[in-house]
């Protein structure tokens, strides 16, 4: 008897009891569907993080305000802008490993172009920002020195904002848009960097301070919300971090023993750590889903053992008519395999449907992983072989004479 004949006989036997066959494979279906879904959500989250890491740019350090003490009270991180434009200048000039740096302040506002408007992040910064993040222009130019010094009424748009404000054939370069009643000329449109990054409009730092925050602002005119800095090489990240911290402590006159009023972070490293955490959680969930696969396998074994007992006479007849022990074994093994494979296939389809539903309803990024699908199918086959073997072996060991005597 060939493998093909085994599968034909198995399919015939399983078709006779469709409900029982389906219930038997349900454990496998649920197990495989959970594994596929968990993999899809997990790798979707990783993809999103990877995109964020890429969008920040390589070898970038981020300096944000830390906790400050006011009259002995420790305030929340970032409650006071402790960094200044001169800090940016000092970092750039005094630390050799830094090749570019830029300070930013940011807020959200409505941007308006003719009949269209869009709510987005307004980031006041210098051209250095684009250098740090390796962010190229799709069209136009960066800010000029005079615009940066003299609060020029210019703006560079992220691709999402450009798309929302301008019709497809419309050239944004040279157009006038308004932000908080201030008319600005669009001088550049940036390359796409990722959905979370492209929804932004950049104006010169001076423009943001003078025209949007206004002179009434209680913020120090010189201060920035955060600084980003690019380190020349990957190996110098730790050294540059320490040097920046030293420099800023000196400049901010922080006595020894007192906490920094700033934080120097490596966002890519932090995200990589986060990515590791996601992977760990996903693996844990897959392990839990595998338990369902195990339970499914046990249920298949249970039903197969019952089936062998029920079909003892059939086994006797097949043996008398020339079926070898291995033919009987193959027949029952094929039944277990068909159950598992069919269950696996239904599970894969269910998992894909489920993760697509989750993606749509929760707005998560999911990614259907061919590897995960292959892996679950391999697991299904392995389950069939492992849990089908004992009943099949039991069937093949039946004495044909005894088997023929049973009713």
């Amino acid at each position, binding site marked *: 008897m060939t493998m093909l004949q085994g599968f034909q006989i198995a399919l015939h036997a399983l078709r006779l009891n469709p409900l029982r066959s389906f219930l038997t494979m349900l454990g496998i279906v649920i197990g495989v569907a959970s594994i596929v879904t968990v993999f899809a959500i997990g790798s979707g989250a990783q993809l999103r993080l990877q995109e964020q890491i890429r969008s920040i740019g390589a070898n970038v350090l981020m300096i944000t305000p830390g906790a400050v003490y006011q009259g002995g009270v420790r305030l929340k991180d970032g409650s006071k802008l402790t960094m200044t434009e001169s800090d940016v200048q000092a970092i750039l000039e005094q630390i050799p490993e830094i090749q570019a740096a830029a300070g930013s302040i940011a807020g959200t506002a409505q941007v308006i172009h003719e009949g269209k408007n869009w709510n987005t992040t307004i980031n006041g910064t210098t051209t250095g920002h684009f250098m740090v993040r390796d962010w190229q222009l799709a069209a136009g130019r960066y800010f000029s020195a005079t615009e940066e010094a003299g609060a020029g009424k210019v703006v560079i748009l992220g691709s999402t904002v450009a798309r929302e404000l301008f019709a497809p054939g419309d050239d944004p370069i040279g157009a006038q848009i308004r932000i908080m009643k201030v008319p600005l000329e669009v001088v550049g449109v940036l390359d796409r960097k990722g959905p979370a990054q492209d929804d932004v409009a950049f104006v010169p730092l001076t423009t943001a301070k003078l025209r949007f925050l206004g002179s009434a602002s209680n913020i120090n005119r010189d201060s920035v919300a955060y600084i980003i800095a690019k380190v020349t090489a990957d190996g110098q990240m730790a050294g540059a971090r320490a040097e920046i911290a030293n420099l800023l402590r000196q400049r901010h006159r922080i006595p020894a023993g007192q906490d920094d009023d700033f934080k120097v972070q490596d966002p890519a490293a932090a995200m990589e750590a986060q990515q590791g955490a996601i992977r760990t959680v996903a693996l844990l969930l897959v392990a839990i889903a595998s338990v369902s696969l195990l339970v499914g396998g046990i249920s298949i074994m249970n039903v197969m053992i019952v089936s062998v007992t029920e079909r003892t006479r059939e086994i006797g007849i097949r*043996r008398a008519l020339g*079926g070898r022990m291995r033919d009987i074994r193959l027949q029952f093994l094929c039944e277990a395999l068909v159950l598992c494979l069919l269950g696996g296939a239904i599970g894969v389809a269910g998992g894909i449907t489920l993760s697509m539903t989750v993606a749509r309803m929760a707005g998560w990024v999911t990614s259907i992983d061919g590897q995960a699908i292959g892996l679950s199918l391999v697991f299904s086959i392995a389950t069939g072989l492992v849990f089908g073997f004992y009943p099949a072996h039991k069937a093949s060991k039946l004495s044909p004479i005894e088997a023929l005597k049973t009713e």
Partner: protein
Amino acid sequence: MTAAAPLISLRSVSRTYRTEGVAVAAVRNVSFDIAQGEIVAVMGPSGSGKSTLMNMIGLLDLPSEGAVYLQGADVADLTEDRRSSLRARSIGFVFQSYNLLARHDAIENVALPLVYCGIARKERLARAEASLEAVGMLHRAHHFPRQLSGGEQQRVAIARALIASPLIVLADEPTGALDSRTGAEILSLFAALNRTGQTIVMITHDPGIAAQCRRTIHLHDGELVGDETQAPALPKRSAVS
């Protein structure tokens, strides 16, 4: 065309079963030959060892002592797999309770032994059709066993026994579950098959059936107590075709 050795040869065959430490001899020191083309009845009361003897001739069981030869070869020398393959190709079983697979239709049942001969499905079905036709059951090819009468089921079972052109057909009380008229038809079918040269061994406890076979082997308490060949007395009427 006769083989050098008899088709089946039993030499001092004994079969002892051991149940709960007690040895029970089902067959004791039995020897006989069956030649190509014979029709033999094995007769005896229940418990006389008929079925045990048939299991050994049918390669389902091996003797505890002595030897069974199929075409001169000691079957104990063959592997279990080889004996299984020989059952598929050389032995045709007919049982008292038909033993058709309930979930397969008649033609699938008839074709079953060919699965174990490694024959492709198309040819299996073609040969099953021919075999069904030979027992007059082609019109029931796609009926399931439960849709057939006892006599019809037994004809399907005979078609199945014949499909691989076996050396020998072994029938264990083939009319035991049938009424006398249907039983007589089945017996006529066997007689007609035998006239075409088919070797048949039939187990029965009914002297009336044994009387229709040329040769009768009598068993009692596992021992051979008689082996007689009579003048042809088979009915002339044929149930075939």
